[in-house]
Every structure is written in structure tokens, then in C-alpha cells.
């Protein structure tokens, strides 16, 4: 690092502390006035534990399967998932459905297509088909729902919240790394309908007035693996599923990253000692 040890002049220390004091004052003033205006924002979501966080994180297959079930039985009434194909559900690093299950699932959907004569038809889906859109376009969706329900393919990466200074700086550091703002927000939002008399009031939604009325209630979706049939569990599972939908290559990425880092550390070590040897006679 750049040397500061020769720095014994009082004037330097005074100036540094003055500069720091001025900046600190400016920041605290800025922050305090910002908090005063914070009311329009939603509450800060709680940081949940996710199997896919951390350097060795992987998706919990059973959780993704449960989450898909919640999506299919509840969310899919209004929200499309159109960037995914049915076949993705059997991809490596995903929910781990079998090819047969995916084929059967795809066949339950009716897909718009053209036959050999060029006539518009509907046919049963194949694994290579994308999840169909629910509405022709956003206007058609808005006409039914008041506001077009967003497609959920990327929602877990398209939603976030601010952790504020200085915590947002910690989020990038090894050991503290935090990338799960999206799933935490989704989980919080689905549990944020805290005013029973107002189904559109949400604690975590910016402005607290959300177009989507409370979508989940206890015992709504049947689980076969004994997991609790609660809103808390449903929301957790569907948030994990949506994270996978948004980032299907997460496991491959983290695995590759570990190999890359191990290689780079060894390579750097070898270069360091080579460098030391070469420079040994240069002083």
C-alpha cells in the first residue's frame, strides 16, 4: 500500500480528520433526511436461509418441485412463465423431474400452432414448447386484472430491495456475499398481507397498495412429502422455484467458479514464487 507511515506532520492529521468530519456530517445529514422520506417504500424483507446461497449452494430439488406445484396451482392462474420450456423442468441443476413426468405435464397444456395446411390449431404441448402465455398481450391482461400481472420467468432477479449504507457494501464480500434479495423479497411479499380487512395492503410492497390480492392461504396446495401446508412454507418454496426459473444455471456457475478460483489461487502462488526468484538479484 501507499506509505503513510512517514506522515508525522500534525497538519496532515488535522486536515484528514477535518475532511472525514465534514464528509461524515454531510452523510449523516443526507441519510437522516432520506429516512424521513422512507415511508413510501415497503418494509425491509427478512433475510431467509436458502439452500442455493453461498459458494457451494445448490437448489433443493424437493423444494423446487413443491414450488412448481404452488406456481402451477396458484400463481399460473394469472402469471405466465414464458421464458421457460416444459423440458427445463428436467434439466440438470433444476427441480429434477423425470423426462416422462415432463412429457405428461406438457401434454396437459394446449399450445397454439399451425397444421400442415397452415391452419391455426391447438395441440397438446411437447417438452420443447415454452410455457404458454396467458394473455395475448399486456393490454389484454390489464383489461382483466386492472394491471397486467408480470411474467414470472425473471421476477426473482427483477425484484430487489436496498439494504442501505454500509450493508450494501458487505453484500459483495466473500463470507458476507448476499445475492438473494429477490427470493427474500418474494417470500416477504407473500407473507406481507398483514391487514386482514384489506386484501390489497402489503407491508413489503412499495407504497403498500398492491394490485394482487392475497394469493396464498394455509392448506391451499396439497403437499405429498409431509412439508407443512402453510403460507410460510408455500411462499418459501415458490420463491426458491422462481429463483431457479430466473437463474437456471446457478449450480453450474457456482461449481465452475470454485474450480476457477482454485486454479487461479494455485497459478497465482506459482507466479508469486517465480517472481520472487527472478527479482531476488534485483536489489
Amino acid at each position, binding site marked *: *500500500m*501507499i*506509505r503513510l507511515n*512517514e*506522515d508525522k506532520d500534525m*497538519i*496532515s492529521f488535522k*486536515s*484528514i480528520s477535518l*475532511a*472525514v468530519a*465534514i*464528509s461524515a456530517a*454531510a*452523510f449523516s*445529514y*443526507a*441519510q437522516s433526511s*432520506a429516512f*424521513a*422520506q422512507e415511508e413510501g417504500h415497503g418494509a425491509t424483507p427478512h433475510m431467509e436461509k436458502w439452500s442455493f446461497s453461498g459458494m457451494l449452494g445448490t437448489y433443493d430439488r424437493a423444494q423446487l418441485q413443491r414450488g412448481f406445484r404452488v406456481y402451477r396451482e396458484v400463481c399460473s392462474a394469472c402469471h405466465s412463465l414464458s*421464458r421457460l420450456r416444459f423440458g*427445463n423442468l428436467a434439466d440438470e441443476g433444476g427441480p429434477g423431474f423425470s423426462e416422462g413426468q415432463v412429457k405428461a405435464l406438457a401434454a396437459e397444456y394446449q399450445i397454439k400452432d399451425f397444421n400442415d395446411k397452415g391452419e391455426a390449431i391447438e395441440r397438446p404441448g411437447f417438452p420443447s414448447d415454452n410455457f404458454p402465455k396467458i394473455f395475448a398481450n399486456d393490454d389484454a391482461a390489464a383489461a382483466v386484472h386492472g394491471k397486467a400481472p*408480470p411474467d414470472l*420467468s*425473471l421476477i426473482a*432477479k*427483477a*425484484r*430487489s430491495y436496498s439494504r442501505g449504507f454500509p450493508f450494501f457494501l458487505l*453484500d*459483495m464480500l*466473500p463470507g458476507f*456475499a448476499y*445475492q438473494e*434479495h*429477490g427470493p427474500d423479497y418474494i417470500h416477504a411479499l407473500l407473507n406481507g398481507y398483514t391487514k386482514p380487512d384489506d386484501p390489497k395492503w402489503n407491508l413489503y410492497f*412499495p407504497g403498500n397498495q398492491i394490485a394482487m390480492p392475497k394469493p396464498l392461504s394455509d392448506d391451499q396446495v396439497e403437499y405429498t412429502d409431509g412439508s407443512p401446508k402453510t403460507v410460510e412454507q408455500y411462499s418459501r418454496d415458490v420463491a426458491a422455484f422462481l429463483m431457479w426459473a*430466473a437463474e*437456471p444455471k446457478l449450480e*453450474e*456457475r*457456482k461449481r*465452475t*467458479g470454485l474450480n476457477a*478460483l482454485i486454479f*487461479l*489461487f494455485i*497459478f*497465482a502462488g506459482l*507466479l*508469486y514464487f*517465480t*517472481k*520472487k526468484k*527472478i*527479482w*531476488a*538479484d534485483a*536489489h
Partner: protein
Amino acid sequence: MSGPSTFVPKSALGRWFESRLPIMGLIHGSFVAYPTPRNLNYWWAFGAILSFMLVAQIITGIVLTMHYTPQVDLAFSSVETIMRDVNWGWFLRYAHSNGASMFFVAVYVHMFRGLYYGSYKAPREVLWILGVIIYLLMMATGFLGYTLPWGQMSFWGATVITNFFSAIPLVGEAVTTWLWGGYSVGNPTLNRFFALHYLLPFMIAGVVVLHVWALHVVGQNNPAGVEVKNVDRDTVPFTPYATIKDSFAVVCFLILYAWFVFYVPNYLGHADNYIEANPLSTPAHIVPEWYYLPFYAILRAIPSKLGGVTAMFGSIAILAFLPWLDTSRVRSAAFRPMYRVFFWAFVLCCLGLGYLGAQPAEGGYIIAARLLTTFYFGFFIIILPLLGIFETPKPVPATIADAVLAKNGGVAAQPAE
């Protein structure tokens, strides 16, 4: 410093070729025999790191181009296809988007190093100004590239930035319409931004050649800030000394880069850019990429649009005048006790402006941004010219060899600080 090459190829074919096109001699003179000051610390490795990043960006970028579609209805989906269906597509895209950030991390370190050690002072003014031009081209390239995924921040960022030009008196509106190729950011804008995003990196590469050429004429500055007086005592040959040291530094930097690509790839991005561009819905806060935030804060600190845009461009342009604004005869901050304090205050000021650039332009944030903007310009226009007059520098070592000896006490040690 680098005279005519004395390089003689070993093979007869090599000698035949060399007498017709002395390219091997040029490479040998530039990257093997080139004398580098022996007291360089690791802050000098960022030139090599930046060269690596430029090449990495061009390679990942060209491959991404093979899968990307610059059309408003397809661009966002084509990027998602890269992420989901292209083999290693997720890696290419994350490497490219984080690579841009790493490129800026490295360039900021490189610039602050130049600022700390007075690398812009005579005879290196042209070298420095070429660097400022590279930085400007990088800013343009980064901005154009951020538009291409056609997410909400891409679209609205492009709208805000191109609107700067409407601040030009009289012809502003016409210029902006001309830039857009229409009456708002749309398909023609995306098309030309794509073309320019592909072009500018090669312009950067061209100016980098000039930058390196200028460097090899005047020689590298060094932590002591004294010129090379005796090539044998003060310097070591580029290869193997600088080559191995720079390689080590590049690999260490790659560790940082890999961390971002593989473990926090979206940290430096914005969630809204995973929402497809929608001209009818404006995001609550339009925030540029982090590397523009200090300038964005300066822009918004000034109450008038034209004034803000002028201040913003001025804050970059002023860097080109640095060689003449700094009146001190001593280069290195190691021997400038007062400058050193103001230097670190300036670093804090830039970080503070960066933080404020990401906050809403209201209340206390605006006041803080105005204070820091004043300091930013004050540093260049008032502090630097006056320091040369009022500051008493410490004694400067006579030669680089003396500086190395004084530091090591005659004992061999790491050249890194």
C-alpha cells in the same frame, strides 16, 4: 529512453524478415529489452491489467455478438437466450458485464495512481491526455453497451443520457432527435448504439497503442518521481522482471474478477434491468452504472440542466488540464506531505459523490452533492495551483537507485509496498 533496437534474430529466415519488416525488433524493444524503473510498486501493474481487460472484453463481446439481436422486440429475449440456451452463454454474458466493471475498477486505480505519483507532469503530458481520451472512450463504450440488453435501466438510462444533448442552446432538440434517429429512444437508437459499441473498443485499442508508444518514448514514472539517470543502476529489463510481476498481478486481479462473475454476478447491476424495456413505465429511480455515479451526482447537484451537463463534462475534461494545474516541481506525493492529504480527501470526495449519485436527488443528498462538487473542482482549480507555491516538499532522492537503497536499507526485499 528506448533507442533504436539492437535486436538480431537468431535464424537466417528471421534476419531476412527483420531486414524487411523489423516487427520482431519492435516487440523485443517494447516488451523485452525496454528498461523499467526498478522501484515500481504493484500500483504500476494496472497497465497490464487494463490491457488484459480490453482483450477479454473484445473476445467475450465478439462471441456475444454472434448470439445477440439488436432489435427492440428481440434484444431482451436474445440476451435471455444467451443466459439459458447458449452453451456457456451465462459465463460469457456475466464475464462481459462484470468485465466492464472490472475494467473501470482497474482504470480508476490506474488514474489515481497517476494522480498520486504525479505521472501527468512533464514530459508525460501527452501520455496523460491520451489516457483521458481512452477513459472518455471507455465511458462511451460502457454506456452504449449497457443499453444493449434493452431492460428498463438500459432504456431509461439511454433516455436520460441522450437528453443531455437537448441542453445545448438552440440546436439541442435537433441534435437529440438526430442522435435517436427518431423522436424518442427506439429501434434506430438501439441499432446505432450496437454499431458504435462494436466500433469504440477498437478505437480504444488504437489510442492504447498511442498511449503505450508515448509511454515508451518518455519512460515510466516511478514511486520516487525522479527520472532514470543511469539505465544500469536505475532500471531492470521489462522481461523477465516486469513480465513476471505483471503476470502475477493480472492473475490476482483475475481472482477478484472471477469472484464477481461466479459468485455475485448481479451485484453491480440493477434489478430493473431484468425487466424488459417499457417506454410507458418509468422506473422510480433511474440510476446509471456505478462507474458513472460520481459524474451523475455532479450533474444533479447543479440546478440548471445546461449547467449540470457542463459541470459533468467539465469534471472529466478538467483532467486533461491537470499537467498545467499542478504547479509543484516535485512529482511524487511521497515527498509532498500536504498534497498527500488533499489527494486522499479527493479520493473520499469521489467515493462520496459515487454514493450520492445512487441516491435520489432530494433534500440532504443534494446539499452533500453540492459540497462535494465544490471540493471536486476546488481540488483542481484552487488547491493544486496553490499547493505548488505554499507546500514545502521533502527532500527527493537523487536517483531511483538511491530511493531503492534508502527503502531497503541495502537489504534485498520485496519491491512491492
